[in-house]
Structures are given as structure tokens and as C-alpha cells.
């Protein structure tokens, strides 16, 4: 079980305050790794640093043995690091199918190519379409394929955003609070999908999650962040042993959330 993504001592500060403080952790192939911690612990910031949306002030980010630290976000995505956002952020005007196809890079996107050989007709397009449909059936949206994305329910949009992230055939998918705002039934479905992605599609998942039950049930590894620093990491079991510490932080968060 070798590490596919290694993060070493990355730091990031906005103005004065340190959002990420020498955070180090790694995510293994075909496993679910969870980032947990109170709000403002820098989880999303770390996502943004890894995917290149925020500059990495110091430290290393190694993906499949290569540094991706200096790359542009789109290059990182092409290397095989996919991500979703807290909001589904689907493209409302496009159909569900188009939303997925957008994620497939094609020659037909190049102006000259588009001009000289109308994209839709050529085989490439057909292949892209088939791939997209396959993915939609994996996430169970195939029968909504031709509806405009704006008509989907919030939960369906979340699934669509995940489908969209899959098309590049990434090695790792980073999900930012995938179950937030979903009812029990839907989040159950989502967990099912996540496990399928790992076991059937052999993906690695890096997940930001607040729901402890989810974390403990599906994760192979849990990383606890506090104020941008990693204070504990290990298997759910090991983290449970650190119960006191977890409660110390997450307990406070739960208390805060309950008001």
C-alpha cells in the first residue's frame, strides 16, 4: 500500500495568521483518507494548495513520486488529481451529460479543429459521449442525462459534481465535505459510491468530512488538523484511542455548531 500523494511540511498564511502550519500527511492508493478538524483548521486551504489554486509558500507536494508544487491548477488536474468543492458548482445552463463531457479533454476544443472538422460528428466526440454516459450510470444519473443541470436536486448535483471529477480518470479524488447538506438516505448512497470508487475503480480518495460516523466507518486513515497543524494521524482505531484529544477539538466544534 504505497503512498500516492505525499504532503510534507506545507505552510500558508494570509496576512498575519497562519492558515496552514508545516502540515505533513500522505494518502495511500485505493484507500480513503479523511481530513478532520474544527472549522478554520485549514482543511479546505490545504485542498486549494494541493490543487494549485493557492501558492504553496513552503514544503513539498509529491504525487506519484513527482512534485506538483509549481504546476498550474489545470496541469495538476491533468496529472490525475481531481477535486470537488463544498458547493456542487455544476454548470446550470448545460445538460447533465454536457456537465460531464466538459471534463473530457478533446481535440475538437481547439478552434482550428472545431472550424475545419465540426466536432460533434467525429469519433472522438462519440467516445467522449459514451464515456460520460458510462460514468453517469456509475453515479446513477444516467436517466437525467439530458435534463438541464439546474433542474437537479441538491443531492443529485453533488453526485453530478463527483461524476464530473471522474472523467479525467484521476488516480486520486479530493472531496470537500461530500455528505454535507445531504439527507441520511442520500449520504448512505454517497458512501456506497465512495467505497465502490475505491474497491472497483481502485481510486484513492482524500476527503474532508465532519460527520464522525462517516469518517470512522469508511476511512482507512484519519488526519486530524488543528489550526493548520497536524496533531494526530492514523487508522480510525488509533484515532479512537486518542479519543480525549479528538473530543477536545471536535467536541468543542460540535458544541459550537449546536448553538
Amino acid at each position, binding site marked *: 500500500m504505497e503512498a500516492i500523494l505525499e504532503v510534507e511540511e506545507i505552510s500558508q498564511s494570509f496576512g498575519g495568521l497562519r492558515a496552514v502550519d508545516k502540515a505533513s500527511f500522505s494518502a495511500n492508493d485505493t484507500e480513503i483518507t479523511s481530513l478532520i478538524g474544527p472549522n478554520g483548521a485549514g482543511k479546505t486551504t490545504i485542498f486549494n494548495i494541493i*490543487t494549485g489554486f493557492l501558492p504553496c509558500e513552503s514544503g513539498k507536494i509529491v504525487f506519484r513520486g513527482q512534485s506538483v508544487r509549481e504546476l498550474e491548477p489545470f496541469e495538476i488536474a491533468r496529472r490525475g488529481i481531481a477535486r470537488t468543492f463544498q458547493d456542487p458548482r455544476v454548470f446550470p445552463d448545460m445538460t447533465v451529460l454536457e456537465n460531464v*463531457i*466538459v471534463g473530457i479533454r478533446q481535440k475538437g476544443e481547439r478552434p482550428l479543429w472545431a472550424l475545419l472538422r465540426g466536432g460533434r460528428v467525429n469519433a472522438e466526440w462519440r467516445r467522449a459521449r459514451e464515456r460520460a454516459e458510462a460514468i453517469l450510470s456509475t453515479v446513477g444519473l444516467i436517466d437525467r442525462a439530458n435534463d438541464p443541470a439546474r433542474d437537479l436536486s441538491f443531492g443529485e448535483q453533488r453526485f453530478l459534481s463527483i461524476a464530473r471529477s471522474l472523467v*479525467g480518470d484521476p488516480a486520486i479524488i479530493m472531496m470537500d465535505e461530500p455528505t454535507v447538506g445531504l439527507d441520511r438516505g442520500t449520504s448512505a448512497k454517497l458512501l456506497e459510491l465512495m467505497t465502490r470508487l475505491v474497491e472497483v475503480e481502485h481510486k484513492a480518495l482524500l476527503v474532508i468530512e465532519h460527520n464522525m460516523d462517516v469518517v470512522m466507518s469508511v476511512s482507512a486513515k484519519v488526519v486530524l488538523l488543528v489550526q493548520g497543524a497536524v496533531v494526530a494521524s492514523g487508522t480510525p482505531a488509533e484515532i479512537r484511542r486518542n479519543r480525549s484529544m479528538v473530543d477536545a477539538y471536535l467536541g468543542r466544534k460540535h458544541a459550537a455548531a449546536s448553538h
Partner: protein
Amino acid sequence: MDYTLHLVVLVLIYASLVVSLDLLIGHTGILSFAHAAFYGIGAYATASLTVYGGWDWFSAMIAAVVITAAIAALVGIPTLRLGGDYFILAMFGFQLIVITLILNLEPITNGPFGIRNVPRPSIGSFHVQSGLGMVLFIAAVTGIIFWAHWRFARSPMKAMLHAIRDDETVAMSLGIDVVRTKILVFAIGAGFAALSGALMAFYFRYVTANSFVLSTIILLWAMLFVGGSCSIAGAIVGPAILILFPELFRFVGGEGLDIPNIQEALYGLLLILVMIFRPQGLVGRRAA
């Protein structure tokens, strides 16, 4: 007759401009306030190369397109990274700079005098004079621009551009090279604008800076959204309405009335009402 043909030509030239503006604004979300500038650069390059450089109309036209696209790319590389508001400002500034340069680079532009006697194009032995020939010529070139736009809108390029327009961040996370694509589209749009500029030069045979000022770009925006963005039909309806509407008033009598200002007032009213009752434009589908 000629009057009608002239109006047809005007509508065609503006339609060709609006359709390239639509590629930038409607499809890619590049809010360009510099389209009039590129239109002007194209017109001046054509006029200058034919009149002073002695080039034939075709080479001049192609050169104008290439030059303009290149300038657009150079301007786009630094500015297209800017956030929306700042990009608008940058384009606004570029527009004013171009006008000033046109007025002062006398050797190339003849300054405020403008360039006269731009040759009419000729195909083989056939010389395109005003009247029907000119209309057909302009219709043909405009057709090419529309065809290209239509092709783009039928290729996977469309989805990619819309992704950039709707959410650049997500687009990047899907592996789309947002900045490069925007620069490319910006250059293409400018190139088309230059083509329209060449048409304008061939038709009027006279280019002068005051055809490419701020009010021109405002008119183009109005045409785009009155017709409806992301819509081929809209790119014709918009210019048609906004050009023919004032012309109607040439036939309104009414002595003692200040017709020009009344027309201006109604024109303004028209814009407001269209936006209130047809926010997606008269034939468009996508709300402005």
C-alpha cells in the same frame, strides 16, 4: 434602392461585429470594452496598407486580421488574468490609448484627417462597386464570420467556453487551460472584429478615428443584448433593430418637433423596455 442597400450593408457590418463580440462576451464571458478598438485597428490597417502601402485589398485585409489578432494576444496575455472589474478597466484604457495613437501616429494613420480613397475590392476582373455588388461582397465576408461562429457553437469548444464563462475555478479543476483558452478566443474575436473593420474601410472608402470611439462599443453591447447573447439570430436582430429604429424617424414629419432628440429619447426607452420585458433579448434564450 441604394438607401435600402446601404441600410442592409450597415446591418451586415454591425452584425459581423456583434457575432464576434458574442463569442467573447456571450460564450466565454470575456467582457471586452475594446472591441471598437480592434474594429478600428483592422479598418486602419486595411486603409493604411492599401492606400500608403499600395497592397492589394485581399492581402491588406488578411494582414489586418493577423496584426489585430496578434495585438489582441499581446494585450490579453497580461490582462486576461485580471479579475472581471479590472479587466474591464484595462480594456477601457486600451480603447482610449488606441484612439489617441490613431490620432497621433500621422505617418501611418494620417492623424485626425483620416485615410481617404481606400480602394474598392475587385475579384478577378470584376470590380466591386457600391450597390448590389458591394452588398453581396459584404454579405459573403459576414457570412464567413457567422459560419465560423456557428461551427464553434457546434463543437466541443462551446461547452469548454461556457464552463470558463460560468465558473473558471471549476473549469481549471477539470483540466481546462483557462488562461490560454481565453487568450486564444480573445485573439480570434479581435481578428474577426478586424475583418469587420476591413469591410467598413472598403465600403465607406474613408476611415476616421471617430468611428471607433467609446459610443461605438456601447452601441455594440446594446445590439448584442437587445438581440440576445449566445444566439446567431440575435446577432442579426439586434443590429437590425438598433440601426433601423433611428432610420424610421427620417420619415416622421412633424414640423416644429425636435425629431433627433425625440428619437434619442425613444431609443433610450427602447433599451430599458427590452431589458425589462425580454431580459434574454428579443430572440435570445440566455438572460443578460
